[in-house]
């Protein structure tokens, strides 16, 4: 996890977290950790230690409570990542339908290795099934589903991302 000097949670995110807390008994603050990290990551792309400390302070919980969550759940990125996250499902159903070829096609196309980032892209080998097995092979781009992938389809998706659409 990278270090940066300090971080103040933007007011808008604070409001959202406070609203989220209304779903739980009033003395419970930890249930907003996951949600809070999602909001911070959405804005900052990946989680750094100052983010964790700021969220712990805001929720009045121990820092370790937030660190644990950031480390345990796979969607939280603790290292710098590219602008767009591409997660290719490589679990059984997708594997049977050629997900490994899809992954290596993307490696070549984006010129990055699996698990690595360029400025623009972060390519992830998603080991957990993403629950779209009937549309295998599939991937998520910034958590949007793209199913029944072909090389041609991937070319189009990447072109759109490159164009900033």
């Amino acid at each position, binding site marked *: 996890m990278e270090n940066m000097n300090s971080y103040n949670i933007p007011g808008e995110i604070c409001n959202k977290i406070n609203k989220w807390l209304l779903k739980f008994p009033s003395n419970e603050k930890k249930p907003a950790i*996951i949600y809070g990290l*999602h909001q911070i990551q959405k804005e900052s792309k990946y989680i750094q230690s100052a983010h964790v400390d700021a969220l712990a302070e805001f929720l009045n919980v121990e820092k370790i409570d937030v660190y644990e969550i950031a480390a*345990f759940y796979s969607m939280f990125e603790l290292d710098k990542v590219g602008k767009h996250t591409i997660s290719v499902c490589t679990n059984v159903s997708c594997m049977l339908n050629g997900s490994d070829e899809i992954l290596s096609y993307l490696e070549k196309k984006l010129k990055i290795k699996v698990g690595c980032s360029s400025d623009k892209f972060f390519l992830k080998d998603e*080991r957990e099934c993403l629950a779209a*097995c009937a549309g295998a092979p599939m991937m998520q781009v910034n*958590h*949007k589903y793209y199913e029944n992938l072909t090389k041609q389809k991937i070319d189009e998706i990447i072109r759109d991302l490159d164009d900033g659409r």
Partner: protein
Amino acid sequence: MMEDKIRINELCYSTLSSDKPNTFETYVDQGGYSTWKKIVSSSMSKKEIIELVLKSGLRGRGGAGFPTGRKWSFINQDSEDIKYLVCNADESEPGTCKDRDILRYNPHALIEGMLIASYAIGAEVAYCYLRGEFIDDVYSTFKTALYDAYDNKLIGKNILNSNINIELHDLIGAGAYIVGEETAMLESIEGKKGFPRFKPPFPAVKGLFGRPTIINNVETLASIPKIIENGPEWFNSVGTKDSPGFKCFSVSGHVNKPGNYEIPLGTPFKKLLDLAGGMKNGKKIKAVIPGGSSVPVVPGEIMLETNMDYESITKAGSLLGSGAVIIMDEDTNMVEVIHRIARFYYSESCGQCTPCREGTGWMYKIIDKILKGNGTLEDLKTLESIPNMISGSTICALGDAAAMPVESFIKNYKEEFLNYIKTQEEVVDNNYTNNKEFVMQQK
């Protein structure tokens, strides 16, 4: 022939026949929320509802198959304690994609089911926990449906002037297979790592925030409104005695029309395969994982003679699980498949129990060694001994889920493992021979 026609998508997928399956209007047009309105206005008793669900024989659709009515009856209705309902929408059993389609295409059935279940167990707060990866499209569809139901005063305080109060909240995870285990989900909702809890106490006694809690799967809850509306006899007029009703099956793998098919339990596998368009490229069927990657693999020829219900699949040596049917053709490399499955459990074990944390790693590393051509007979023997050491010695079922497939793949396809090893031993042998010749030449 009439009897050959399969009844399809009548329950959880009933809105699929509409152009706009997920809207409030479509659901209401199909008679949706009438059950909830009736319960609220006639104050149908909690006991009556639980009785109907018990009678229907509905079994939990998340994978364990526990009778839903019985689960609900574990709640002590006389207790004044706060109670919770939790909907498990952390769909992540490999091969399973049925709940995502309920959330996307029939979210109101789930919401109505959650309301009825909450009322029946005496809960005034219910949570629907969606897996983190649903955060974009699936989550927003569900949220829209939830707001629509709130706007129509079907949820909230004093619902339709009945003095009934139920709040229904959406929650989102952040990526962890283990959170699909019900007590791990409670931990996650409480804002902690997803470590399964030791049982007892069971959640119905001490669950979320220490209060009595019932956790049900999406499909289970979405089945409730129609079961109450049409009566338990409508539901259990299809299926078998021990597996009544309709069930959603996610068919994936080497078939022409992979997809979700909601059919009567007890339907022959052959017919489900037909619905899914048959085998791709006219290939022969080799193997089927009938209930998600956590259940034992079954050879194709046995599956072709098996019906899709709990007891038939048990007889075939596996489990119905979540209803994820992964179909493999004759060209499938079974060592590669189990390698992928073992890799998954290795990366998803939460690490709390030693047999699972270490055992999943051992299994993956040995299979990896075998697949790379470096395995020995000794390795295969070790691999065969591991499942037995994990099963039954962990807090939750992930250990068993990791062990069962390995055991069954070796049992049914040992030849393929041996082929990898044989090649290796030949190599070893050749090296030895070459070396011997070399040594002799030197002499």
